[in-house]
């Protein structure tokens, strides 16, 4: 049984007179422990699809099952609890709370879940150790580098040991060095903790760290490629596929970086 099962999902935005179809009938499945990328040009519906899988947004029609449970029509309250316990998020603009220290930002999901102090402390130590954040725990987000910010966001996403980690353009604001670092950490999390990761990007370099990539165009799945050989070869495959789709997503992002 796949961890995520998306069946014929549609999403339509707007009013009666100006309807915009963001997702037009997508079906896909993500297995436990996978590292899946979703790629496509701007406006293809990547983020909409991710948000629906992450239960932040609801589909207009269709069905989404996570771990065999239909999450499409659950109540807001149940979904909130589900997100709190099962999911982790990383965003392009980090979304750290400026008023909280690094430590407080990371443990936030656990305090929301109502865990005991020793449990929280232990989880914090593990996470911080994995991501190399020990030295900056007492600082505020304004006082650390961009790369560190994204690692903090990553720490917050994984501290509750979610089954599923969603990342929306996680490297979008990072320089090449910080991006590489973050992607290595994500790989580690995927391999060591067995966390399933779904990542949206339009940067080929970032995507090349995934095991499998779904290409979306105009709200529908265009094609799919699976990594078999080295990452470098996979990167070339991604570039070729992007050229086929057109409407280039290569304009920004650390494309020019040597690999």
């Amino acid at each position, binding site marked *: 049984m796949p961890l995520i099962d998306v069946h014929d999902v549609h999403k339509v935005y707007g009013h009666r007179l100006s309807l915009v179809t963001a997702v037009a009938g997508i079906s896909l499945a993500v297995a436990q422990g996978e590292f899946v990328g979703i790629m496509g040009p701007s406006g293809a519906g990547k983020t909409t699809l991710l948000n629906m899988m*992450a239960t*932040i947004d609801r589909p207009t029609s269709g069905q989404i099952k996570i771990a065999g449970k239909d999450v499409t029509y659950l109540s*807001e*309250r149940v979904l*909130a*609890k*589900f*997100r*709190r*316990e099962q*999911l982790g*998020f990383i965003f392009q603009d980090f*979304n750290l*709370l*400026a*008023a*909280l220290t690094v430590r*407080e930002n990371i*443990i*936030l*999901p*656990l*305090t*929301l*879940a*109502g*865990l005991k*102090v020793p449990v*929280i*402390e232990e989880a914090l130590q593990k996470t911080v150790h994995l991501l190399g954040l020990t030295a900056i725990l*007492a600082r*505020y987000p*304004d006082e650390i580098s961009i790369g560190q910010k994204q690692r903090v966001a990553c720490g917050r996403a994984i501290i509750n040991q979610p089954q599923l980690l969603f990342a929306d353009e996680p490297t979008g604001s990072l320089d090449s060095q910080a991006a590489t670092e973050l992607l290595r950490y994500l790989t580690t999390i995927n391999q060591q903790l067995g966390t399933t990761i779904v990542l949206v990007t339009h940067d080929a370099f970032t995507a090349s760290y995934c095991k499998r990539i779904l290409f979306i165009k105009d709200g529908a799945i265009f094609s799919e490629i699976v990594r078999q050989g080295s990452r470098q070869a996979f990167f070339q495959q991604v570039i070729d596929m992007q050229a086929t789709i057109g409407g280039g997503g290569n304009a920004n992002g650390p494309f020019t970086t040597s690999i």
Partner: protein
Amino acid sequence: MVLLRLAFKNARARFSHYLAYVLACALAITIFFSFNVMATTAKFLPAVAQQQRVRFALLTTSFFIVLFMAAFMLYANLFFMQQRHQEIGLFNLLGVTRWRIGLLFFLENLLLGLVSLVLGLLLGILLSKLLAMLLLRLLDITLATTLLFSWAAVGQTTSIFLVLVVILAVMDASLVYRHRLAELFRQKPPATSHISIWHYLGGGIGLLLLGYAYWSAQNYSSVVHHYLFFGSTAFMVLPLLILVAVLVGTYLFYQASLSLILQLLRRHKRFSYHGLRLVTLANLAQRLKRNGSISWLVTILTAITLTILGSMTILYAGTQSVLNDEQPVALTVEKQLSAPVKKALVQARIPIRTTQTARLKVVSARFKLRSALALNYGAYVGPISVIRLTDYHAMQQIQPDLPALTLTEQQSVLLIRQVSNAGQASHQGRLAIQLNTPQIKKLAVKQISHVFPYGSSNYVGETGLVVSDQTYQRLAADAQTQPLAFDFAHTAKSERVSKHLAKNYGQREWQFQPTTNKANFANLHFQQLMHPVTENNANYSLPLLNVRYPRVHDLRTLFGLDAYITGFVSLIFIMATGSIIMLKQLAEAAENRSQYALLAKLGLGRHAVRQAIYSQTVVTFLLPVGLGLVNAYFALHILNVWLNQLDLTFAYIIGLVYLVVYTGYCWLTANAYYKLVQQK
């Protein structure tokens, strides 16, 4: 014209934002107009007895309303400008000249001002009759009022507020004009900071100062003894010290103690690692830091207005109690004048419920009270009136509040007015009174009472002594008086007749003159003279006729006017400060929207968000008012020690009203905040 349209559009779009501001302005205009129209309408004022006083009070108050409004509008405008600095920058970037942006803001301001003015004037015209009726009611005057209106008042109101609005609009426009583009786009500095040694130091000192001030105020009458090295001014120096400690302490409290406390709470993991508490604590730290100065100002202003209102009620209660001490009975008259007075009462058909009479013996006496404050009542040497126990108890029929007494021949009860007793130690220990009579030289004072049978204005030296009938019998008096009390109900007619009688006979008085130098108590006696006397050394006098009801009326009028005016002034104060805090909170709501969106993604339910918002708003809103109330409480406490344990109920009620109104504001703000945050 494009500019005018844009200004109009902007003002309309932001109207919901400005609603609180416009309403506060409109309310001030309404009250200003109503006061003005009452002061200037020819039909209205001549009907009021103390018209000069009332007119003066109304005009002075409206002047202060203008001053206060100017300050409020200035602050609110600066705040709005700060809110919109990015918008200004954007216009500038789009190539609109600064002069035109300035003009745009000028027009917008003018529009808002005009809306407030029109709203305020309309309300004023509608409500002025109501306000006038309220004033008349408080002044105890019956008068049919029609709709009050005068073009002069409209003109004056319009011109004054237009001038205010134009000045502010010009100021805003010039501010825009002088701003640099880069400055406008600059982000606010982050409000997060680490706790430094200064927080510990300042925060600690702040708390200590507040603690010292509150403790000293609460135990004022015992603490004042430790300050006697200031000499007799100690009783004034200590409150000044307390005032300074409160001002500085409150400031440090907002600037350092609060950050410190919140930080310590955050570090206390078992407390803070719980649901949204971390976020709430961090947000609170940020908010309180940003609002530090305004919170301090609101705290101090709340304390000042409440203290003024409270002391006013204390004074009223004090005057009331003075009247009750001096003249608890409708009318008292000396026996020899009683015939014409009784005739007048009967002729006017005033039903007399009871009459009562007694003989009071005047003797010279000496005693000394123990003083609690540096304010020393000192030793009393002079004449006192002595009443016998039977006459005392007989008077209970008219004055039911006279406490029942039992006395042996060696005992007495000293009657002292409450006001002159102010600052005396509550426990007097063994006290004795010396009398200069051949048979009785000394009597023990069993207790001190403040309730005079017949009222203290019938006692020479406003001091009395109750003794047993046997002792009274043996007492050789220097002189005698014989008051006769008439008890009748308070009606318009009885008040008028009382006033008339007081006018006819009120000038006549007994005068008592020492026969010898006071230094030699053994020879001191008093000689009774009838007014007028030529000698100037007749220190003690006693009017032959005293009436109560006209004085009750005067007191009510006096208090009514004061209550009316302070009531409206504090209403404006509450509205203005409430609006300012509300605006600040709502501005932050817009900033914090992304924070709550994130928390929702992390799996936070709506209910928890609502709760977090409410608790934060409650603290930021009610903390200044609460602290202001506490400060006012201690200030009133000291005043009350001076003025001798008077009734503070009224002051407490006013404090409660403040709290209720602010809670209402708080609720509105929290609701609006929640809606803003939930907006997609």
